């Protein structure tokens, strides 16, 4: 059989030319990811931020709480590099704690949402037919509710101190649908692949096929979706906290810091800008990492069609 498109021809022959060098799948993916410069820079930056959020509090003098020794409303100076709040918190201490809480929520959401979403999507995709129709209708419902509003409504209705994990649970409960959709799509197309049929022809059971073929091949898109879910969760949590329906005082999160400082942008800019910039950087790095992972894992590259 012959092909007609020039770029395809070139791509294919280029891939065929790997020849003598032996490379495992993982090595290839790693190599592609390492070559994605924005993703690599982002990864380095994210690691720094994680250290800042989780190790920082042990090294820095002040925590996020109000202390009598902290002078109120002081602009950045040597003792308080990012200044202090009206109530008397050290902003740098708040920033570390805020970033920590934000990251904890985001990663928890990502893990929970991915697990639930993958299971839901894989089940729908694998069984297909009526089961699929019904399960995806439920996903449709979750897709149509405005996420932030829904989680804010629920978190706001739950009285008496919302902790970070409660926030994470609520966000996760509403953000798995996107993952389910992605995974279902992948499983649906994988199910029709000839290598799956080959396994069935050899007598493999459904369990064998799911574990040996579907999951490893769906891993790429799932990892990418999970990464992007981290960014979604961060923005959701920040939005909730901004509306003051998220993590409650005395604990702090980045969104809450922005919310508290929203009228102080011109008068006390050191309260308003640092948490925002940090949020943007976290989301940006995660999106770039997701982008890099997508490029590295893209089945269109690894499965190399004619």
């Amino acid at each position, binding site marked *: 059989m012959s*092909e007609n498109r020039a770029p395809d021809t070139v791509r294919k*022959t*280029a891939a*065929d*030319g790997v020849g003598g060098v032996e490379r495992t799948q993982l090595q290839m993916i790693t190599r592609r990811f390492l070559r994605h410069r924005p993703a690599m820079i982002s990864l380095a930056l994210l690691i720094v931020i994680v250290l800042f959020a989780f190790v920082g509090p042990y090294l820095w003098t002040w925590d996020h709480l109000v202390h009598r020794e902290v002078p109120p409303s002081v602009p950045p100076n040597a003792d308080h590099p990012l200044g202090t709040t009206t109530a008397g918190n050290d902003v740098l201490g708040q920033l570390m704690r805020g970033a920590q809480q934000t990251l904890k929520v985001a990663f928890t959401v990502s893990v929970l949402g991915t697990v639930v979403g993958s299971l839901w999507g894989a089940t729908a995709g694998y069984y297909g037919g009526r089961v699929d129709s019904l399960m995806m209708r439920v996903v449709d419902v979750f897709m149509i509710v405005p996420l932030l509003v829904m989680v804010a409504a629920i978190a706001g209705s739950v009285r008496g101190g919302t902790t970070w994990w409660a926030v994470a649970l609520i966000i996760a409960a509403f953000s798995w649908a996107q993952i389910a959709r992605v995974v279902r799509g992948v499983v649906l197309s994988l199910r029709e692949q000839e290598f799956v049929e*080959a396994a069935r022809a050899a007598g493999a059971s459904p369990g064998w096929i799911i574990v*040996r073929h579907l999951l490893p091949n769906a891993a790429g898109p799932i990892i990418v979706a999970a990464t992007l879910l981290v960014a979604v969760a961060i923005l959701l949590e920040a939005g909730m906290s901004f509306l003051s329906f998220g993590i409650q005082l005395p604990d702090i999160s980045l969104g809450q810091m922005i919310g508290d400082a929203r009228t102080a942008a011109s008068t006390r800019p050191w309260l308003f800008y640092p948490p925002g910039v940090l949020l943007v950087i976290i989301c940006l790095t995660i999106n770039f990492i997701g982008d890099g992972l997508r490029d590295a894992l893209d089945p269109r590259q690894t499965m190399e069609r*004619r």
Partner: protein
Amino acid sequence: MTATDATNREREGTVDRDDVVLEVDDLSVTFESDDGPLRAVREVSYVLRAGEALGIVGESGSGKSVTSMAIMGLLPRNARVSGSARLLGQQIVGLTDAQISKVRGEKIAMIFQDPLTSLNPVYTVGYQIAEAVLAHRNVSKAKAMERALALLELVGIPHPEQRLRQYPHELSGGMRQRVVIAIAMANEPDVIIADEPTTALDVTVQAQVLEALNAARRETGAALVLITHDLGVVAGNVDRVAVMYGGRIVESGPVEEVFYRPRMPYALGLLGSLPRLDADRSERLTPITGTPPSLNAMPAGCSFAPRCPMARQLCHEEEPLLLGVDEHGERVSTAVAHPATHSAACHFSADLGESSPADLFSPGEEVSGESDTVESVGGGGAGEEAAPDLAGDEPILTVTDLVKNFPIRSKGLLRRKIGEVQAVSGISLELRERETLALVGESGCGKSTTARLLLQLIQRTSGEVHYQGQPLHALTPRQMRPLRRDLQLVFQDPFASLDPRMTVADIIAEPLRIHREGNGSARRRVGELLELVGLDPEHGSRYPHEFSGGQRQRIGVARALSLNPRVLVLDEPVSALDVSIQAGVINLLEDLQEELGLSYLFVSHDLSVVRHIADRVAVMYLGRIVETGTTDQLFGAPAHPYTQALISAIPLPDPVKERTRERIIVTGDVPSPADPPSGCRFRTRCPKFANELSDEERIRCVEEPPELEERGSGHRDACHYSEVVELI
């Protein structure tokens, strides 16, 4: 067909510069990529004269399509084009968009491979043809539509008024390709480039489309560049042919010269690796070893040298120029592209003499690392004996009245059943021990569904399948599992059938693991199997993407063999492969059958391959078997009009035979299996029904579905008025 008049004009062979419509000179195309520049086309030169047809043949990656896209200015931006292409004296390489727009469609038009994606889905057919007219002619829209109508008639589309208002998705593939041809004809161009125009189509439809292409040439007087991998299509439709390999033209000349006296080992090899309808069945194919070079690792000298049995030191060092050759094969050092000149790019074309492909490519059946033959198998003479004598008479697999209807469901929540596709409608087959039974038909005839039904991969609607007396259709999946060891499957697409995330060793050992055997010996078994299919046993730790198409198909075969099956169901096992690679896999399958005593159910649309490999053949049409018999019976004396049409639609890779043979052309497209015609399902396209039968006789075809009837010694056909015709 109708290429004959054009051919004769060619014979005079005087170079008349005024006659030249397209002159390509030293054209090269380089793609920028992450791995450095890839030289897809190198120093291509040819001349095309008015009204002439030039064929460009080559396998995937040979640069044949890229050349034409470069001429049309249609390459993506990362392509660098150098050299020149003069159309009616005008340089068209490097023109601005505004300038080239005036040339495209007006003086030079192009037809692409895939008719399903070539037309914009959101505009009507009429609009898209009229658009081509309006792009170059200052006429009213109504006038352009009139022209569109006339063009649709010219390319032989029935009910053109109605078709004008339809959208592409309402038309079949063959019809869409004819619409594309109509677009190409719209402004009576001087050159039409057709890039694999029939590759995506079934053979009977291919014949119709080639006919439309010839009508286009007649009507517009355009010269044709026909790009294809199919040597048969080239043989019957062009005057001159250029063979491309590794981005260069390696041989060119009048079509008879190149086909009957090739002067470059590659061209000879291609002809030898082709199973052909007009050749002796028992003759073994002579594959070309190795795989085509990849663009980023071009050999230093002749790009064919690594695969060439004639290669000497010089070949690996210096790339041969494309030079004229005289009747003895001696190189004449005039590089001038005289149209009648036979030229070749081979240092030693004189040494080729009158060798046959077999002399050159398989003198002692050499075996190298990526060899195409299996050394361990019964020595050199293995394939020469005719297989039918060895085939036992004991049926190993029996199919009785097998039916499969796929429900058509509504899209809503309820997924109500709103119809049925009758994919397989009552099929009976017998596969005997050690024989190859071929199941032949065009796309959508139900042959692949039948294959999967036999293996219980999909649920039958009714009917029975017995394997060695055991009723497979009545078994539970659990009971079926041990029997799966005996019945294995090889797929069409070597890219999709191997899990990209597993190593080759894991892929081949998977069936062993599923059946919990060979825990310790699995590794050894994988090595044995790799060796058996002609691959390096050391390569087990690699991943599928590191192998070429032919090698991957061998891996697929190795996997199927891992449990020592008795029956292999082969679903189009070679149709995704290039010709030179295909021959190797066919030989491998023949050798394996010989050595392991396998029974093959060989599903294919390619009658040439089937004729070569099969002992018996069953022809399917719309879910039914219309004719079955031994290969000799079926090809020597086809009785059913459909079989006759199929056989006569296969182009022969022989210019003279192809132009002079008698043809039975079927019209129209295969009806939808959701609503098959009453009575005989073939009657809507049957030439006999349309031309020969009286009205009373036709009633029987409409009302009474014909049963398979014995014609003697196992040759059966399902036609009320069947009559044997000799076609080869």
